[in-house]
C-alpha cells in the first residue's frame, strides 16, 4: 500500500535553517545540510528546502546548498525559493533535487508551470500556495492566494488556482495555510480537504503541525497525501519515528523501515 509521506521542511535564510511564525521572528536552528542528513537518516520520506529570502534579495537560489544536500541525502529533495525561470529550475534539478517548487512566480506567470512540466515532466513541478481565509466574492471557496511570503493578496481563489495549476502541468500541490503557519495548533483541515478533493494530483498539507494527531487528521480527515512538519521536529519535541508510530497506531500507512 502507498504510504503517507512525512516531509520535514527547512526554511533557509543566509545559509542557516530558521523557523518563524508567519515568516517573522525567525530563530536559528542549524546547518541545512546537516539537518537534511539527520532527517533523511531518521525516517523522513522526502525533504523540502526553501531558500526563503532569495526572492526578496533578488538573487537566484543557493545552488551549492542544494548540491550538498542532494549529495548527502538518499531520499527525494524538493527545493523552492529564488526560482524565476525554466533555466533556474534546470539548475536546481541538475544539482540533484527531484522537484522544484514554484509559488509567487507561478501566480505572476502561470505559463512557467507548463514550461517546467514540458521540460522536466509534471512530477518535477510542485505548486506551492499560501492561501489565507478571505471574505471576498472573488474567492468562493473562502480562501485567497497570497504571494511574496503572505505580504500580498491576489484576489485569486485557492481552489480555482489549484485546478488551473494542475491543468497547466503541476504534479503536486503544497497547501500552506497562512492562518495556521507556525502556530502548531494543527493544519487547516477544511482548506486542505477542499483542495485534495478538487484535484487529481497529490496534495501536501502544510502549516500548523504541532503533534502527531494533527498529522493523522491531515490524512484521515483532510485526505492529504503527505504532510509537512517543521517546528515540532526542529525543536526536538517529536522525532519522525515517534510521529510514524502514532500514525501506524491510527491505521495510517507509513514507511516503517529506513
Amino acid at each position, binding site marked *: 500500500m502507498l504510504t503517507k*509521506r512525512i516531509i520535514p521542511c527547512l526554511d533557509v535564510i543566509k545559509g542557516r535553517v530558521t523557523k518563524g511564525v508567519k515568516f517573522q521572528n525567525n530563530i536559528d536552528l542549524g546547518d541545512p545540510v546537516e539537518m537534511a542528513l539527520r532527517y533523511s537518516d531518521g525516517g523522513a520520506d522526502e525533504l523540502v528546502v526553501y531558500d526563503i529570502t532569495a526572492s526578496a534579495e533578488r538573487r537566484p537560489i543557493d545552488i551549492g546548498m542544494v548540491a550538498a544536500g542532494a549529495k548527502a541525502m538518499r531520499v527525494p529533495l524538493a527545493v523552492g525559493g529564488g526560482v524565476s525561470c525554466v533555466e533556474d529550475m534546470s539548475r536546481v*534539478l541538475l544539482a*540533484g533535487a527531484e522537484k522544484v517548487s514554484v509559488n509567487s512566480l507561478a501566480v505572476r506567470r502561470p505559463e512557467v508551470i507548463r514550461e517546467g512540466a514540458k521540460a522536466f515532466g509534471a512530477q518535477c513541478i510542485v505548486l506551492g500556495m499560501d492561501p489565507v481565509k478571505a471574505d471576498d466574492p472573488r474567492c468562493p471557496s473562502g480562501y485567497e492566494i497570497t504571494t511574496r511570503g503572505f505580504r500580498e493578496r491576489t484576489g485569486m481563489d485557492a481552489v480555482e488556482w489549484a485546478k488551473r495549476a494542475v491543468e497547466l502541468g503541476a*504534479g503536486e500541490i503544497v497547501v500552506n495555510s497562512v492562518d495556521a503557519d507556525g502556530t502548531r495548533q494543527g493544519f487547516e483541515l477544511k482548506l486542505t480537504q477542499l483542495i485534495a478533493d478538487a484535484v*487529481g494530483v497529490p496534495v501536501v498539507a502544510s502549516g500548523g503541525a504541532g503533534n502527531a494527531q494533527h498529522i493523522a487528521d491531515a490524512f484521515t480527515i483532510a485526505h492529504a497525501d503527505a504532510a509537512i512538519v517543521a517546528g515540532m521536529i526542529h525543536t526536538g519535541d517529536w522525532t519522525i519515528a515517534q510521529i510514524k508510530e502514532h500514525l501506524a497506531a491510527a491505521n495510517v500507512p507509513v514507511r516503517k523501515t529506513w
Partner: protein
Amino acid sequence: MVTIIDYKAGNLTSVKLAFAALGVETQVTADPAVIRAADRIIFPGVGAAASAMANLREAGLDCVLKEVTAAGRPFLGICLGMQILFDHSEEDGGTDTLGILPGQVRRFPDVPGCKIPQIGWNQVNDREEYYFVHSYYVEMNPFAEGVTEYAGVKFASCVRKDNILAAQFHPEKSGRVGLKFLSDFLAWNP
C-alpha cells in the same frame, strides 16, 4: 565502472550520486561505441514514452539497446527505462516501445482517493518500501520478481529476465534499501 545511458529523458544526477555513495565510478554517455563496450549498464528515464523513444531512435540507441541486452551483460532499467523495455505503452495515445521484454504498459485507472501520478513509498512484495513516481505501470508478467499494488492494480514493480533487471521504483532515491538494491545489482553476475 558503471555506464549510465543518457538519452535526454530526465535527470541523471541522483543516479550518479547513489553510485558515488557506494564508491562506484560512473560514466554517462550516449555514444553507441561506449555502450557496446560497457560491462554494466544503467538505463534510467523519467518523462514520457513517445519522446523517450524518439530520442533513442534519433541517437541510434534503440538498436544498440537490443544488442547489449542480448549480449548478456548486467543491465538495469529504472522507471521509464523499465517501461520502454516492453512491447507497447498506452502513453501518448499508444507508443510502440523497444520490445526487449514481452508485455504491456498501462495507465493507472482513475480510482477515488488514488492520485495519479503515484508519488511516494510503496511496498514491494509486501515487504520494504521503495520510492515510486509514475502514472503508468508494467502489467503483471512471467518475469515479475517484485509486485506492488496501487489504485486497485497489482503491477510488476521489478522484473528480471536473464541479464536484464528492471525496476519501476527509484532505487537511487529509496534510502538504504535502495542502495542495497543497487549494490546487489553491482554484485550480480547473471
